[in-house]
């Protein structure tokens, strides 16, 4: 087992999940509450990573973060190293790639709140921040947990984007999914099997916890 890759993968997944929740909660709130004509475009862009091949996203991020663009050159100058082939670059790629897995459950959760409840909060003088923090988030705890679980497990299982942006640098950008690829390339099938089973276990446990938390509210038969 590549323990270095295991630690890096968990660090990447945890960081990505925290960044995604922080960014997606206000984004989902904006999506459900705005009357802007830009809403369909923003929703489409936030869902796009589900449909794109990871290599497409990885390719454009590689170009964006590299020395070919002004953004890449400025960040490289400020940080002292390019964002591509670094942990920070992996976080950026993972956040964009897993964005729909945070935004979708959160918007579904916010949409499911009875509009009359939100109207009462407005009538009683609550501003947007208070409505979000004291009404919408407490009533969408399951959606927040679902978003966190999906983001974490999706990031743990990432391959294409991570490989394109980060390459395969041990201790810096080599995650478990890339370690499996390396192990297969080396014909170390037993090692690849152990690592793969670990990834399956992580995803399965996360999903079981998620569905157990949901309870049997959806049961249609007594």
């Amino acid at each position, binding site marked *: 087992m590549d323990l270095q890759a295991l630690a890096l993968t968990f660090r990447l997944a945890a960081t990505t999940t925290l960044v995604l929740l922080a960014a997606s909660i206000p984004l989902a709130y904006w999506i459900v509450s705005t009357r802007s004509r830009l809403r369909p475009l923003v929703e489409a862009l936030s869902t796009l990573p589900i449909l794109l091949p990871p290599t497409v996203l990885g390719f454009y991020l590689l170009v964006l973060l590299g020395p070919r663009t002004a953004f890449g050159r400025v960040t490289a100058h400020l940080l002292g190293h390019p964002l591509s082939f670094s942990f920070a670059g992996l976080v950026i790629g993972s956040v964009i790639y897993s964005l729909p897995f945070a935004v979708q459950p959160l918007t579904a959760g916010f949409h499911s709140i009875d509009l009359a*409840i939100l*109207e*009462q*909060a407005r*009538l*009683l*003088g*609550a501003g947007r921040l208070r409505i979000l923090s004291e009404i919408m988030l407490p*009533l969408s705890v399951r959606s927040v947990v679902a978003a966190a679980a999906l983001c974490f497990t999706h990031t743990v299982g990432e391959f294409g984007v991570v490989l394109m942006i980060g390459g395969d640098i041990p201790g810096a950008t080599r995650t478990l999914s890339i370690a499996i690829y390396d192990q297969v390339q080396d014909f170390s099938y037993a090692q690849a099997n152990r690592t793969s089973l670990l990834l399956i276990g992580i995803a399965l446990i996360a999903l079981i916890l998620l569905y157990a938390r949901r309870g049997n509210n959806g049961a249609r038969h007594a």
Partner: protein
Amino acid sequence: MPELSTHDVTLRHHQGAFTLDVQFSLESPWTVIFGPSGAGKSTILRILAGLASPDSGRITLASQTVLDSSTGVAIPPGRRSIGYVTQQPALFPHLTVQQNVAFGIRHLESAARAQRVTEMLHLFGAESLARRTPAQLSGGERQRVALARALAPHPKLLLLDEPLAALDDASANDILTRLLALETRVVYVSHDLAEIWRLPASVVLLESGRVTATGPLQQVLAPHRDRLLKLLGG
């Protein structure tokens, strides 16, 4: 004399434009807006509360312009000093009764807030419910808490949109008796002739977005009784 008026307020629905051109006095403590379904009763309340935005028009409430599309004035719901309770109590399900009632008076100090919550729950005979959550309440109890919550911030105007329609007679009568003892000015919407007949109110008769009669309730409604029963399907 407090007056409420809407001027050329236009709402466009998918079924076409809906125009409200309504002016009436709030001289009486209770004003009943009465009319058949689709007359615009609930729409008026939602626009007054700031929960619905008309496409154009002007609304003044006691000399204060709360909405004017020509100058861009649109006072948000929370700053209109209006309480609004409908048939659906819409309590915050994750908060206790006490927390629900306290939601709109966060600006008060802790002791004053607690005292106001107790007063409001007492007013509606709901003191014993303070620590319960909305899921543990009956329909009548929820409506008592919704009214206590709406009145806690001392609103200038209380808008009630058929708040008793889903309750049994005993609960409805008890709540109505308590409401009638209030000093707050009330605008009450109903299409139940029997329910409003007992109210010491002035009435605004509304048909298709237009006021067709105003004045003391029995005086206004008696001449229209036959036509109203026909409109209401009676």
